[in-house]
């Protein structure tokens, strides 16, 4: 049995403009010590997916259907107190923006040992000792001193390390990392990603790594899911998705991003148009209006995510690309 099992999860956000299907019919699973990558552009629903897996979306503004099972425990529709029991100890989240994820008027040490004291019932001094240990583990120099620092006194990279320490505090079995390096410089990004790799191996946790950057997931995940307009449009092993992608959107995403290894002035293959408005999705495939391979059927009917052979490689397309280009 896998650690996390998501079946047909859909999330509707209630906005002033109308109901918005932020996540539609998503199924995925994460096994023990596995890393799943989720890739998509802004508005593809990847952040909403992460938050709805956690059950963090405010019920007044979002409604979820389907099933999210963590170690067999159903989380969709669970009572708030039951969810609270799972958070931090079973599933924790690393947030995108280290500038806003920390309480600016609370010392960082207190923000870490809060979890330990409130959730694990550690004494003040034991929590403090553990928090300093955690700070050291995430590579923060002179952790005793940093324990008493306010977030405003730390650099972006240091803050993200604190956010990671906070997520790891109660040794969860699953970590959801939502764009953990987006606001950081390349060299700091490399440090943080290596740190995550290292910690994951040491603590035997599973991870879902969410990003817009294909480079981040290429070498660090075993499985990959590509999202577009709230749906998973292609999923499989990372190698399969990169090398043998069948969905035109996946290819477009790969070819529109410039690469360091390409010579200068390489003409990029831009995707025409722009991501669809989720409030006004048509009948057919959401990518059809921007797709060079779209047929009449694509505009009329939505392709389901399906696996054509015995592999685990699934895609949602009526006119899939040939393999082995």
């Amino acid at each position, binding site marked *: 049995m896998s650690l996390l099992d998501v079946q047909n999860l859909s999330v509707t956000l209630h906005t*002033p*403009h109308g109901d918005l299907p932020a996540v539609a019919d998503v199924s995925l699973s994460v096994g023990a010590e596995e890393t799943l990558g989720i890739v998509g552009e802004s508005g593809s629903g990847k952040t909403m997916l992460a938050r709805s897996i956690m059950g963090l979306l405010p019920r007044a503004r979002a409604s979820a259907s389907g099933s999210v099972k963590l170690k067999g425990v159903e989380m969709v529709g669970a009572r708030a107190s039951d969810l609270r029991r799972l958070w931090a100890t079973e599933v924790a989240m690393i947030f995108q923006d280290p500038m806003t994820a920390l309480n600016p008027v609370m010392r960082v040490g207190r923000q870490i040992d809060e979890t330990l004291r409130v959730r694990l019932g550690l004494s003040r001094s034991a929590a403090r000792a553990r928090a300093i240990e955690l700070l050291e583990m995430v590579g923060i120099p002179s952790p005793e001193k940093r324990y008493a620092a306010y977030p405003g006194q730390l650099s972006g990279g240091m803050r993200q390390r604190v956010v990671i320490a906070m997520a790891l505090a109660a040794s969860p079995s699953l970590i959801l990392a939502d764009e953990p390096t987006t606001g950081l410089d390349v060299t700091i990004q490399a440090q943080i990603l290596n740190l995550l790799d290292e910690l994951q191996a040491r603590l035997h946790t599973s991870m879902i790594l969410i990003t817009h950057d294909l480079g981040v997931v290429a070498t660090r995940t075993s499985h990959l899911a590509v999202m577009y307009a709230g749906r998973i449009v292609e999923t499989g092993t990372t190698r399969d998705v990169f090398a043998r992608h069948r969905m035109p959107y996946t290819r477009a995403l790969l070819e529109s991003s410039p690469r360091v290894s390409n010579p200068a002035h390489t003409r990029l293959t*831009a995707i*025409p*148009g*722009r991501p669809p*408005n989720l*409030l*006004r999705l048509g009948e057919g495939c959401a990518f059809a209006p921007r797709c060079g391979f779209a047929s009449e059927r694509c505009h009329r009917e939505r392709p389901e995510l399906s696996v054509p052979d015995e592999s685990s490689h699934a895609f949602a397309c009526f006119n899939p690309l040939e393999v082995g280009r």
Partner: protein
Amino acid sequence: MSEMTRPATETETTEFTTPPSRSLGWLFWVCVGWLGLNVLGAIFASVLPLPDPLYQNYMAINASPSLHHLLGTDDLGRDIFSRIVFGSRVSIAVGVGSMIIGFGIGAPLGMLAAYRRGRLDAILTTAMYVFLAFPAIVAVIAVLSFWTPRALAKIILVIGLASVPLVYRVIRTATMAVATKDYVVAAKVQGATDRRILVRELLPNIAPVGISFLLVGIATVVTLEGALAFLGLSVNPPTPSWGNMINESRTVMSQNPWLVLFPSLAMCLFLLCLNFIGDRLRSHFDVTEVKL
């Protein structure tokens, strides 16, 4: 030819980029109408077919509302409705007049300081903060109690000058928020003159802040004038003003509660409308900076 290489023109602009245009609502327009009525009444009070607000009709003392006296009469037999209409002149004159002074001096200085920065800003801001720390209300009471005899023009001048630092601060903060935006830099880069930038780029974007603060400011000043009149520090009786009407009626409150209620109601409605319009405009233009 070259058009061929361009990606398809995106036409569906309004799709999701337009914020929902919240309508101002019918209550907003009711408030505007009420304020308009008040202002018109104040301007044309002497032309309107109203009884003389100073005429003491001893035959009708403490009369209840009737057709003859719409809102009744006071303990000296004066027509309350007429006194309320004439009394609004003082409130409106002080409110509008002092804000003209406050904005006339504070707004240009605030804009200039925020746009130019540097030494001018440092000097002006320090000076204004010194005056801002000064409890303005105490200062106004102090000056008005010494600078006798009291007259409308003096009250307007004193309150107007006292409001300058506040206006300065609000406008400066609003301008600073706009002046750091890239489009202001972009205008500079295109070779626009400072004057053009101030008028074309900054002014339209701080106007909503300015207008809603102006309305709240008028409301505050009207309240202040009411309090001064109540304390006997505004225009001298028998000239009616809302504040001194409320004050004078206190002594006969238990016999004739209308006397307190009507001017209070007039004043509260006036303030409520001002505040409501200011508040609506603020949320309409998504202004958050205004704080009194």
